[in-house]
């Protein structure tokens, strides 16, 4: 039994890699530049909402979806989730006072969260 244990551990070790997103995908850092670039609602935020937050055909956050009851399809509806309590950001950073989003999965990627945070901090404009 001891032999099998040690052989299995050696098997575990052979699967080890030392990777990070910034080196694997060099555009990861530039795409995520939220300090020198103004984040645009139309260019940056809508694609994140479409791919990560369920807006589009029959998706969770379409207006009128009874499961979520929160629409995120229009600028006005997104803004309503930012003011006054900023539930929008709190839910995607998994703040315990809100329901963690996306539902049942992990967080959005770091870059998307940073973009949304930057957009909100700069006045959540319809730009």
């Amino acid at each position: 039994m001891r032999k099998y244990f040690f052989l299995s551990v050696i098997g575990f070790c052979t699967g080890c890699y030392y990777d990070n997103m910034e080196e694997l995908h060099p555009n990861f850092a530039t795409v995520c530049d939220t300090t020198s670039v103004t984040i645009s609602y139309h260019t940056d935020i809508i694609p994140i909402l479409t791919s990560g937050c369920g807006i589009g055909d029959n998706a969770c956050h379409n207006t009128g979806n009874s499961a979520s009851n929160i629409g995120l399809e229009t600028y006005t509806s997104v803004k309503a989730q930012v003011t006054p309590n900023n539930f929008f950001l709190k839910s995607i950073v998994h703040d315990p006072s809100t329901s963690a989003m996306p539902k049942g999965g992990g967080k959005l990627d770091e870059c998307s969260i940073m973009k949304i945070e930057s957009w909100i901090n700069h006045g959540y404009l319809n730009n």
Partner: protein
Amino acid sequence: MKLKNIFFLLLFMDCSQIKAQDLLSLIDSVPVPQKEFTAATFKTTRLVDQHTLETVGRNTLDFRISHRFGSLNSGSLNAWGIDGPVDIRLGLEYSPDGRFMFGIGRTSLEKVVDGFLKFRLLRQTTSGSMPLSVTLFAGAYRIALKDNNKASQGYDKYKPETNRWSYAYEIMIGRKFTPSFSFQVAPWFVHYNLVEKITDKNDAYGVACVTRLKFTKRMAITFEYAYRINDYSQTKYYDSMGIGWEIETGGHVFQVHFINSFGLVENQFFAHTDTKWNNAGIRLGFNVSRVFTL
């Protein structure tokens, strides 16, 4: 004369053979003292989140349900975390000989599927000839999430497959000091194949301790802490700490506890605990264990 000598020689040999047989049977009848191992240093294979040095018994299957609620500081509207979000792990764990153990499980947070191996290298004896127990642990974890941002960012975070994997190792050293008090210390090491930033390290390590204090025949108070040694990320993480109450009822063991970690497997709670005790970032949780002898 010669014949007489041979006769006596044969008689003597025969008698000596009888004597030798008597001595051998006498030795066989003397009980050889058996090495007796200290039983139940901990009641089950987990304390709160962490593994204990225990393995399940020979040919025993352990079905485990672990559950964590949302954090207490989510307020009364969220029933102090009871409304969620919740994290659940279902696990099946088995030992063929009571010493080597393996198990699989599935955790809802990050949709992690895990497998682990455990081996009791040394076992404490009641005579004191072995004062400590030492158990080796190795676990592998696969995140089964989909990359929701694949289309917008132009790549899949989880390609190649190895990006999904992380591993954990522990050496658990412990002792049952009295029938009601046990303590274990365990150096731990976690490896992540993929981390986010270039400044993040793929390896995290530290030292964990778990302890159990029995106060009735069937109940105990438990405590665990996992200290992180190296600076592996700029993201703010905290040491995992849990306090629990353990109740044994026949084949079941119930564990109810408060802990700041939301994750239920080693790659989550050792290095990625992101809430802390001092602003009530703790949560109610429970483990249920049911063993079946096969």
